[in-house]
């Protein structure tokens, strides 16, 4: 009598099953990693924009309170507490047409460099608009300082009477 020996059902997973599981896990892990990466980058961008806004607010309010707005110089006033360098106009945000530039400055806060241009315009008799435009080096991606989109810059305007 001839008996055929049936092969035992093998325990464990087949090669295809293992490969499928690895592929699914890889997609899940890479997906998680991607969303974390984008969340981190977005928080970083938000942090820079918030700090840029604070720098703009600092300059704007200090300029507004200065005894003589024509001679205000952030480098001499706040230079001992913050790293503030005086730059040439093309190294920072551009001055809009019709406005008078007061100066361009490089301000370093927590290791990040911000560049600010201060400019003003007499909008009515006895009323002057003081503006500060701030950009930041990080995420500039070789774009010109003067042509940065609103997402990578901050502009603030305040008004003073000149009478």
């Amino acid at each position: 009598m001839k008996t055929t020996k049936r092969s035992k059902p093998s325990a464990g997973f087949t090669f295809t099953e293992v490969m499928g599981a690895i592929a699914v896990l890889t997609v899940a892990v890479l997906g998680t990693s991607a969303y974390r990466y984008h969340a981190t980058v977005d928080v970083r961008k938000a942090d820079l924009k918030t700090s840029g806004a604070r720098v703009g607010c600092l300059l704007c309010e200090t300029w507004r309170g200065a005894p003589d707005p024509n001679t205000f110089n952030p480098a001499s006033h706040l230079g001992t507490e913050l790293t503030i360098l005086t730059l040439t106009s093309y190294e920072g945000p551009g001055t809009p047409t019709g406005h008078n530039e007061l100066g361009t400055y490089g301000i370093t806060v927590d290791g990040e460099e911000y560049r600010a241009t201060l400019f003003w315009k007499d909008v009515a008799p006895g009323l002057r608009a003081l503006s500060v435009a701030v950009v930041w080096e990080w995420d500039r991606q070789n774009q010109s300082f003067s042509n940065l989109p609103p997402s990578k810059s901050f502009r603030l305007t305040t008004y003073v009477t000149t009478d």
Partner: protein
Amino acid sequence: MNMKKKNAKRKGFTIVELMIATGLSSAVIIGIGMLLVDSHRSWNRMYSRTYSGISSDSHVARRRFDSVVRNASTQGILLADDGSWVEVYYYSDPNATVVDRYARFFTYSGLDSNQLLIEHGAVQPRQTLTTETVCDNVASCVFKSAGNSAQMVLILSDGSETATIVASAVMHN
């Protein structure tokens, strides 16, 4: 002769194939692993930065400084020579005709960490009314003044995170 044929047809991988496969998969796994570790580290840094005490302290300090200075009178501001404290004056009541209150920002070395405090008081006679803690984790704090405005450069640190807070406000009353 028959045995040789059987051996040649044996299925499987050669040692060279296995070594190459192991090398390639190791490179891929190490690459992905480094990516994941870096991503995780950045995530943790961002998370601790966002939710640390430094973050809320900086928010509170800036808001408090802004509201007090903006409410202050333009009649005067007193500043320490070394910028360690600043004192502004304000009206206790909207109908008051004289400036009768003062608010002084100063730092205090506490048991756990340095604090930024604000003291409110009456001007005449000089009397302290309240003293409140604005924030902890103060590493340094310098006040400045330019005309009708006051500035604060506050550095907060909890040992792992450091943040520089800059604030400026114009006195309005």
